[in-house]
């Protein structure tokens, strides 16, 4: 009997050793073997996703450059490039503390410069920071498209620092940092509101405050088309963005688990984008008589933005419905902006603001309790208006907050350095007037428009 007990113990020890040995070599602790391994995979996944979201800078850069005129290409590229640098720095010093620091329901107030931050969760602080920093950069860069071709470079630099240091992290705190919206049960899986509605609304405020480009609207109220200079760049940018969205949405699972969760998110993301693109192109074809490449691209982006909040909470056919609606929204939104004389050269508002709102609300319509950890059912699944109400409250509060905050910020910048270049500088092009350089030296370009 004793022997058996001894055998027992040996068996157990053998088991412990057998399992632990290779782990000891690595992590020097038995109890953490699986934990370590899980944490490793999860970090790997989050980092790769972060790298992909970083690449969105290239996507946005090419898309925005492609949709504006040659004479402002350097400017938009530079805005796009430096806003990420600004966002990296600002989010390092201020943003992360405001977004995830201990504070109140409105904002965090500790962890400036990432000093003395204790981080919970399976991934290390640094990975979490990088993942959120690239999201912040994405939100910031959305504005570059809306205010393109007429905002002063200095003004844009100041904007990009301020938005990344304050506006974005505050809304982020509400939703992802344990703020008041999180406590209400507001659910925005990967950021339809936090990233896109925030960025898109900032773009809306910016484009209204800086005013339409010279020549965009006629005296009789009709709009002119100011064609983008390279559909190849725009198309490349869109495809890069779609690719990066596979980091944006599935990456927001923040863990790999058995892989099924992130797979579902990836499939929803892809289907919403595909249906969004097809809807937009057919709808625009029906309205304008020709299939428009820019509309199909914006339709895909609209689908991607819209599925960003609900991607974890819905099933594929619902993702397709969400994508379908987003394709309609983006076309009508573009027409609507032209009607009300808001000049948004690349469609930042219909894509990011309008569809960011739509996607957030879609959670309240199609969300399924339990799926992706959602707390309640949406309207379509018998959850009544509760979740829907919270979602609408959340996204509209965020939009209103951004309108107020960005109005103040842009007013301030206007007073200090001025928002808009002079008429002459705008006609000459921002590349020459702001940067003293040309984007396409050697090519013969028309600069008469």
């Amino acid at each position, binding site marked *: 009997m004793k022997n058996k007990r001894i055998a027992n113990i040996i068996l157990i020890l053998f088991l412990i050793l057998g399992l632990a040995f290779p782990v000891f070599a690595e992590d020097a602790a038995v109890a953490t073997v699986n934990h370590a391994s899980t944490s490793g995979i999860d970090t790997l996944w989050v980092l790769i996703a972060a790298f992909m979201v970083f690449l969105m800078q290239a996507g946005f850069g090419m898309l925005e450059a492609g949709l504006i005129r040659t004479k402002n290409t350097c400017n938009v590229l530079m805005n796009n490039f430096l806003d990420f640098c600004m966002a990296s720095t600002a989010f390092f010093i201020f943003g992360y503390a405001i977004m995830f620091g201990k504070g109140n329901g409105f904002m965090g107030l500790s962890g400036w410069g990432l000093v003395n931050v204790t981080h919970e969760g399976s991934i290390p602080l640094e990975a979490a920071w990088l993942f959120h920093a690239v999201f912040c950069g994405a939100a910031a860069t959305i504005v570059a498209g809306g205010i393109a071709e007429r905002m002063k470079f200095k003004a844009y630099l100041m904007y990009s620092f301020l938005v990344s240091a304050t506006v974005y992290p505050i809304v982020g705190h509400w939703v992802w940092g344990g703020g008041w919206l999180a406590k209400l049960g507001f659910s925005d899986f990967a950021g339809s509101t936090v990233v896109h509605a925030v960025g898109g609304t900032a773009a809306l405020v910016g484009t209204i405050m800086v005013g339409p480009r010279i020549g965009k609207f006629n005296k009789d109220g009709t709009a002119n088309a100011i064609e983008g200079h390279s559909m190849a760049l725009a198309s490349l940018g869109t495809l890069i963005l779609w690719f990066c969205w596979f980091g944006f949405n599935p990456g927001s699972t923040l863990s790999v688990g058995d892989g099924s969760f992130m797979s579902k998110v990836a499939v929803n993301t892809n289907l919403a984008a595909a249906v969004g693109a097809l809807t937009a192109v057919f709808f625009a074809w029906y309205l304008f008589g020709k299939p428009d490449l820019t509309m199909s691209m914006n339709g895909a982006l609209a689908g991607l933005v819209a599925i960003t909040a609900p991607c974890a909470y819905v099933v594929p056919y619902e993702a397709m419905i969400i994508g379908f609606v987003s394709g309609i929204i983006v076309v009508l939104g573009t027409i609507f902006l032209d009607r009300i004389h808001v000049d948004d050269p690349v469609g930042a508002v219909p894509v990011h603001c309008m569809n960011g709102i739509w996607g957030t609300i879609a959670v309240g319509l199609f969300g399924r309790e339990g799926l992706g950890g959602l707390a309640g059912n949406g309207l379509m699944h018998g959850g009544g208006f509760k979740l829907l109400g919270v979602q609408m409250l959340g996204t509209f509060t965020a939009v209103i907050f951004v309108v107020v905050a960005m109005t103040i910020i842009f007013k301030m910048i206007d007073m200090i350095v001025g928002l808009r270049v002079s008429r002459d500088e705008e006609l*000459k092009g921002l590349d020459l007037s702001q940067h*003293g350089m040309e984007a396409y030296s050697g090519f013969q370009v028309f*600069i008469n428009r």
Partner: protein
Amino acid sequence: MKLIIAYIQPHKLNDVKQSLYAAEIHKMSVTNALGCGQQKGYKETYRGVVLEVNLLKKVRLEIAVNDDFVQPTVDAIIKGARTGDIGDGKIFILDLAECIRIRTGEKGKTAIG
């Protein structure tokens, strides 16, 4: 018949087109050009080196007209292009010996319009 060549500022093309249309001149040809005139060039910097650009982007118009249309055309161009600043451009007028419409083979006065 005359051939009128005008160099104007690129961003004035639309205005010039409008004032030509207003003067009932609907036919013209446009090319891009680089011009060196009284207007001083500007400086670009590229990777730390200053670059004097003295060939400025201009638009070149070519309009063939009957003699009685010369003055209205010149006036219309000036109306559309003048800002009073250096660089507004120039108009050159050449004698046009003949004009032929390729489609019909018509010649001279009837072909030009």
